[in-house]
């Protein structure tokens, strides 16, 4: 419990008390390293490498006579070069939180700092990949990317932009699709173009809102591997800070350094689970490892504890 309070040290004591205690099975044979849950930023970071600081964010919608609290007192610190996934059942506010980071929504209370500066709306320091409609349907794949580059690097000539676009199209394996319109590309290909655009824009931060949520299972695996490969790079280049919203637990484990689990009613951070699996990772190696199974079990039990709580709540009502 003490451990848990430390995790939630940035959230109000009240809200953490009201939360159900973590549905962790004390005494079962969960390997020890799982319990090594760090408070955010405790172990390897100093103040310098905090990239994103989310401070006591709340978001309330006022309808006619009803008040809906989408987010309540969410605090989170994400380090430079860290890959963080946000998971949680639907309605937990994970996408809402991300849209605040994107700058598309303004919180009712609290603030978001990037590099110590409060964000006001959208910014050129953040690249975004949506689940759908990330691309403009009236632009070819190449034009979509070059249009994105133009917004962050207006100093580049058209030729340089197109060169860069094609370079990144090749990176996602779509060199042949440069002159195709999005309607001629499958959902998975469109997302690859969207990722290529986000990477080509070369922002410090990458915000991804269920980017693989609308593609079929096989394509999703391919895209995850691709993203992993592109993000891990050759190990020398500076890594981007990624915030990745998903409801796919395996996806989150495969990609992330840390997983944030959120809960609904009101939307809040429930648990943070570090994923200390070796990098570079590959799915085929990962699924064989004991550590992977352990993390997965841990998250599963937390995740389904959440769902059980929800069902219980509804039953009472």
């Amino acid at each position, binding site marked *: 419990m003490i451990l848990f309070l430390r995790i939630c040290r940035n959230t109000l004591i009240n809200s953490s008390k009201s939360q159900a205690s973590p549905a962790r099975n004390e005494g079962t044979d969960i390997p020890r390293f799982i319990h090594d849950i760090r408070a955010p930023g405790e172990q390897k970071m100093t103040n310098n490498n905090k990239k994103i600081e989310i401070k006591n964010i709340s978001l309330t919608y006022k309808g006619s006579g009803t008040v809906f609290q989408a987010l309540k007192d969410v605090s989170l610190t994400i380090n430079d070069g860290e890959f963080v996934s946000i998971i949680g059942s639907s309605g937990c506010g994970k996408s809402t939180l991300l849209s605040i980071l994107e700058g598309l929504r303004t919180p009712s209370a609290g603030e978001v700092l990037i590099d110590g500066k409060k964000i006001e709306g959208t910014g050129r320091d953040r690249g*975004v990949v949506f689940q*759908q409609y990330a691309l403009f*349907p009236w632009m070819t794949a190449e034009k979509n990317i070059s249009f994105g580059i133009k917004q962050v690097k207006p100093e580049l000539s058209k030729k340089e932009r197109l060169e860069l676009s094609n370079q990144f199209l090749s990176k996602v394996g779509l060199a042949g699709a440069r002159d195709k319109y999005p309607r001629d590309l499958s959902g998975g290909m469109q997302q690859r173009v969207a990722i290529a655009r986000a990477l080509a824009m070369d922002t410090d931060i990458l915000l991804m809102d269920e980017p693989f949520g609308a593609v079929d299972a096989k394509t999703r695996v391919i895209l995850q591997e691709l993203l992993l490969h592109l993000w891990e790079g050759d190990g020398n280049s500076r890594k981007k800070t990624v915030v990745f919203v998903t409801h796919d637990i395996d996806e989150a484990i495969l990609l992330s350094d840390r997983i944030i689990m959120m809960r609904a009613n009101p939307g809040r951070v429930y648990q943070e689970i570090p994923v200390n699996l070796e990098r570079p990772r590959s799915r085929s190696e990962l699924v064989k490892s004991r550590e992977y199974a352990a993390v997965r079990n841990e998250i599963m039990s937390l995740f389904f504890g959440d769902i059980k709580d929800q069902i219980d709540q509804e039953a009472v009502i």
Partner: protein
Amino acid sequence: MTIKERFLRYAHLLFIIFVLTELFLPDGTRRAPLINYAIGFASVIEIMLLTVSALSGCRKKIVMFTDLGIVIFTVLLVWELMTTKFNLVKPILFPPLGVLVHQFIEDIPEIANNIVSSLGIIIQGYVLGLIGIPVGLFLATDKRISSISGHIAGFLGAIPPIVYIPYGIALLPTFRSVSVLVIFLATFWPVLMGTISGVNHVDKRLLDSAKVLNLSRTSTIFHVVLPASLTQIFVGANLGLCISFILLTSAEMIGARAGLGFYVKNYSDLGDYTRTIVGIIIIGVVVVASTWAVSLIQKRLLRWQS
């Protein structure tokens, strides 16, 4: 495709029947039916069909064109049988095909003048009416203005522009300028309403994409809102074009001294129904050609759509 598939079609058989009918079935009237012109006209169509059949690589296209040929030759054949061959209808109201074609060829300079006059007014009024696009973009992108401008445009657009003609005549110096004004109104309101509706229905996710790319307001309007509303804008533009032709020809029948509407009205007043029919067909051709031109532009601009 084999030669048989390309050229063995009923349309060509009908053409031969038509020519044989013209040549060997005796004339039932004592008017000069000018069968050479009729055969010439049918031959022009037949040559077009043969060209398509010979050059097109698409089987469906060949079938479509030759099917059209069947319809055209059947109509021509029936027309000739009813008029000159068996004399079943009043000759003054239904002149033989050859007479129509001959009249058309004789009147080409006059008809050309009238087409230039009519199209000149249409293009002027229409291009002016396209101001509805920027105006609509401006009105619809501001939330407060947008909510009232829809109502205002709904009211003003509901007034049939033809009722402005008498007032326009009092207001403006020439009948031509009145026509341009009417065409302008006929185009402006549909285009404006199409634009407003298009802007209002732009997918929110596209606007979010624009926002996270940090597009400026101008850039958002031109690179996102405008292309996203283009489909609706073209609905308005096509509607505007249709209404424009209806109004222009009507207006020309009321007070003009030139134009296709005038040509038809003038010669029917004089009892020259040959020219009346020629005029009607020419108007059809001009309208089809105009809408086709607009649809080419539309296809080009919306080529990214499925």
